[in-house]
């Protein structure tokens, strides 16, 4: 097939996945353009900016592959659409998922629009996810071929319109094969370490980073039955089900470690209790808002599927009851530990990612768990 008339703009991050994405498209004969997105001004005190190093890697890889490359600055868009949301969720005692928002608002919106300005037919990303176009022309999102790397969770808020324009050339591959391809092609990023953590925070101390933007309000740390266990340094630093950072020893009823089992934002109280499997951490259902599905077909009011409540979690069987205003009640087949408000609930039908929403509240039977 002659792909030379099909222009694909690749989001190149300077990592190995997007490098191989561009390589594969070029080999398939597409009219490929690499574009680096600068979403965050991360110049440190010594004037070093990791974006510069990443861009230089993009330049090396693009030159090797033989494609033109450019850079675009989305710092303002990222700040307005992702970072403001991120801070706001923390202000409300929730744990946001900036990657889901970044895909929805930046990579598959600002960047997609930018690619449209460059007369692109498609954009391509180095995500571990796959697409499939059915007879009606509807694009379905499928899990990545490397189960360990599957990134559909982060793509769960995309619309059909966005998916129509997306290509994931490495989506069916294993990570190790991606690296091998990069090495065989002599790409400068073949052995580059995978980036970890939230993109704009990188390897920095998360607590310190957050404290630069949000005032931390110290408060009381107590057991659900009211026993004061100490001080917390600010509710935003704690996530439901988290163990580390509690700073209290085994002065409870058993030697079991302590976990965050709840928050009261109004009273600024952090609830802690003992045991990984503490009953306060187990929910049987949740309420979600901002629901979206990737295909435009109408969903039944109630349906059974599987769901993930955080990245890299095993799927759990759920019954979804759709409510008004893009809300839903999701009832689990079995209790699930540490359902976290602010995170995404993502639905699957076998290999297909159906869509998702944002977790607002967790329930144990009929009772709402005090998680925010």
């Amino acid at each position, binding site marked *: 097939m002659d792909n030379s008339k099909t222009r694909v703009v690749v989001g190149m991050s300077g990592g190995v996945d997007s490098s191989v994405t561009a390589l594969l498209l070029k080999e398939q004969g597409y009219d490929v353009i690499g574009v*680096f997105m600068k979403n965050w001004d991360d110049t440190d005190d010594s004037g070093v900016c990791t974006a510069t190093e990443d861009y230089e890697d993009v330049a090396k890889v693009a030159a090797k592959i033989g494609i033109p490359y450019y850079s675009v600055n989305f710092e303002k868009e990222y700040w307005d659409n992702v970072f403001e949301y991120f801070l706001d969720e923390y202000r409300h005692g929730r744990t946001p998922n900036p990657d889901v928002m970044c895909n929805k608002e930046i990579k598959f919106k600002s960047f997609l629009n930018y690619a*449209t*300005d460059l007369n692109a037919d498609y954009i391509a990303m180095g995500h571990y996810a796959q697409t499939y176009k059915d007879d009606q022309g509807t694009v379905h999102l499928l899990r990545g071929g490397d189960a360990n790397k599957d990134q559909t969770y982060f793509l769960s808020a995309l619309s059909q319109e966005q998916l129509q324009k997306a290509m994931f050339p490495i989506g069916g591959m294993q990570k190790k094969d991606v690296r091998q391809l990069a090495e065989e092609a002599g790409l400068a990023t073949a052995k580059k370490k995978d980036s970890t953590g939230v993109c704009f925070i990188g390897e920095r101390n998360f607590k310190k980073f957050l404290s630069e933007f949000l005032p931390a309000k110290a408060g009381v740390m107590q057991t659900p039955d009211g026993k004061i266990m100490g001080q917390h340094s600010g509710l935003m630093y704690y996530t439901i089900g988290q163990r580390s950072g509690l700073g209290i020893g085994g002065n409870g009823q058993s030697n079991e470690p302590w976990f965050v089992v709840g928050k009261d934002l109004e009273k600024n109280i952090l609830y802690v209790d003992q045991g990984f499997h503490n009953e306060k951490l187990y929910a049987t259902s949740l309420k979600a808002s901002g629901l979206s599905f990737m295909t435009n077909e109408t969903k039944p009011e109630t349906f059974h599927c599987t769901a993930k409540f955080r990245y890299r979690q095993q799927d759990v069987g759920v019954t979804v009851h759709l409510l008004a205003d893009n809300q839903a009640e999701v009832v689990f087949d079995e209790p699930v530990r540490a359902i976290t408000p602010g995170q995404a609930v993502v639905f699957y039908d076998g290999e297909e990612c159906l869509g998702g929403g944002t977790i607002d509240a967790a329930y144990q039977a009929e009772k709402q768990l005090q998680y925010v």
Partner: protein
Amino acid sequence: MEHIYLDNAATTPMAPEVVATMTEQMTNDFGNASSTHYFGRQARMVLDASRHTIAQSIHAKDDEIIFTSGGSESDNTAIIQTALAHQDQGRHIISTAVEHPAVLKSLAYLADLGFEITYLPVDETNHIDLADFKAALRPDTILVTIMMGNNETGARMPIHEIGQLLKAHPAVFHTDAVQAYGLVPIDVEADHIDLLSTSAHKINGPKFIGFLYAREGLNFLPLIKGGEQEHKRRAGTENIPAIAGFAKAVALIDDETRHKRQLKYAQFKQQIIDYLTKHQLNFSVNGTLEATELQHVFNLWIKGVPTDVLQMNLDLAGFAVSGGSACTAGSLEPSHVLTAMFGAHSPQVAQSIRISFGVQTTTAAIDAFCQALVDSVQKYFEQQARKI
């Protein structure tokens, strides 16, 4: 795909004669001009002859020419070293808001050291007002550094008038002539210029070579310290092939050639204006069309189309123009020149491109460029409906 180069204010291709001269130098001579043997003398001979050619081109004396690595080094030396040498007489410097970064960053460095800098504003045509200059001049002004011609719009600054005003003032007068050298006649005597920066690669010479003209008797310490080359004003073994190439590039430009080129570039501007007007493109010229300006630079506001998008689409269509300077992560920075002309939030700053002509530019190339520009702009407006 054929690629057409319309970014000659950034750099120019080397003239074949320059390549030939340099190739011969590199093939036959390799001596160090400071050596006191045959090989050294051979190199010295080329160095002296080149220096003479170049000195003549601006009506200077041979010893007033200091070879440097280019425009940035010349500017840094001229500004920082003379300011430091004169700081006991005052710490005030006058410049403009639209200088090249090599000048602005040198001044920022001096400001950090406690010097006071007055940046003259420009009007919407990118010109300073001599009245502003007169008002800024003080008894403790030790240095005036004002560019001869602007690299983004081609605007000429009133160098002759400033030179006359400074005749009776002790301030040292530096002009960054990187963009003007070789394009317009320069006479350092008539214009009373004390320091002047140039670069070879803007006039079809090699890169990483330039000169600083420094009036006889003007003393300052070298920026690059070491050996006693260039009358102890610039250490480092002279790059003889590059210097010979530079001199060749200069020798290729006589008054008539220069004049013809300016006329040709002015015609290109008119050709572009006529084409865009005929095709009803909504645009405006940033600057003036006066014959006194540097004609090889043409800055256009293409209304409604972001600079980076237009520059990229033209590049993808095979036409190299400038959208401004890029940051270290590759994305374009807003132009400080257009900002000074129109204000930070003016649409011109976000929607302008610079086209710059060179000796190799043809009427046919300009015609093809105009078509591509109109096509890119039309496509851009069509694409807006497809956005999500």
